[in-house]
């Protein structure tokens, strides 16, 4: 799977799983569907960004740091818009960014260049 597609799929999947953990917080359980959709979109954006970065820069360390930065930024934005749950959203969101950043660098395929 190419780096961008891998980032997209993994980001969306991890985003959806991350969002669904809101079920364990009874206070927000009523908005679960919205949280899952939002979290999936957040993961998807982070994944695509990490995939594009992995195509341009071939470094696992930089990939992980980029994923962390993107994950942090997007999670912060979501928490800011929600006016709360900063730690619960930012901390796991950043780790999801790192996972996607690492996976795209390590396991994503570079498209073959034309001869």
């Amino acid at each position, binding site marked *: 799977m190419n780096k961008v597609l891998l980032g997209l799929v993994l980001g969306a999947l991890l985003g959806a799983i991350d969002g669904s*953990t809101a079920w*364990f*917080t009874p*206070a927000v359980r009523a908005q679960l569907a919205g949280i899952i959709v939002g979290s999936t979109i957040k993961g998807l954006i982070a994944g695509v960004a990490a995939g594009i970065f992995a195509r341009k820069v071939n470094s696992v360390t930089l990939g992980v740091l980029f994923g962390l930065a993107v994950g942090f930024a997007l999670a912060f934005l979501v928490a800011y818009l929600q006016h709360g749950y900063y*730690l*619960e959203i930012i*901390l*796991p969101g950043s*780790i*999801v960014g*790192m*996972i996607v950043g*690492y*996976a795209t660098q*390590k396991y994503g395929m570079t498209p073959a260049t034309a001869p």
Partner: protein
Amino acid sequence: MRHISDKALTRLRNSAALPDLSGTRYRLLGQVARGGMGTVYAAQDEPLQRRVALKVLEVPGSEGELANRLMREARVLARLEHPGIVPVHDVGTLADGRVFYTMKFVEGQRLDKYIESLASIPDRLRILLRICDAVAFAHMRGVLHRDLKPANVMVGSFGEVLVMDWGLAKILADAPETEACNPAAAILHSPGNRQKDATVSGITGHGRVMGTQGYMSPEQARGEIESLDARSDIFSLGALLRFLLSDKLPLRSPARPYRSLEAICAKACEQKREGRYATVQELAMDISRYLEGLAVAAHRESIFEKLGRSYRRYRFFIFLIAAYLLTRVILLLVFKHGR
């Protein structure tokens, strides 16, 4: 009558042995090495202003067996244009009648010296992969090296790996022109010059034994010249791998050879060639797979070995997932009681 001193005699002998480069484009710089049939000198290519290695036959004459062999070696090198094989530049006869050829002057270290500074097994394996690449190319061009050993691999100052000394090479495609019908071409390194490498010289029932003990295949050691194929070089590559895995590895090296690497070695060095890898590419593929943390064809893993390998391959990924799950659990526990 005046006697000449031993010292003066030695000096005279040495200067008489120096090649006469008059009438050529080269200027002699000094002796580099002495081989079985010739001596290698450093020379300056005057028109191009570059240093070259000049291999000159010990004895004059362009018709003899050794001359034919040197010419053949130059022709073998000429057909092998590859970044991992030292390129030949020129061939000819000197004013003193000796046959010569020039090749790229490689500044670097022999593999056996170079690996003393190379502690990690993956780094050593990457060098072997580059040797495999050059040998696979030679096989594709119908040439067997037949004397692969650490002393015949040079690592340049920029890390380039070059397979040297194709003096024993066998051309498979047009074998009738080679030693099969020309015994002169099958002359071995003279024992006196190659004692350090324990090169064997002798005659067996089928033909001459050529190569280096410990690195040549059993069929090569038996002198079965006609039946040698790529699997003979594969045996030598396996022996090279064994050397790279065993030589001067630090005792506390975190990456001591695993069973799969030992299995690759064993498969490449099978006594019966039918049991070896069929091509150098197959051997290289297994080494690459080992480097990437994948299962190798030479070794059937137990479930525990599989798990161990998967853990080593994905450990950072596993760590990140574990960190995520742990964070989620901690946050859940903390905020469940906090809010």
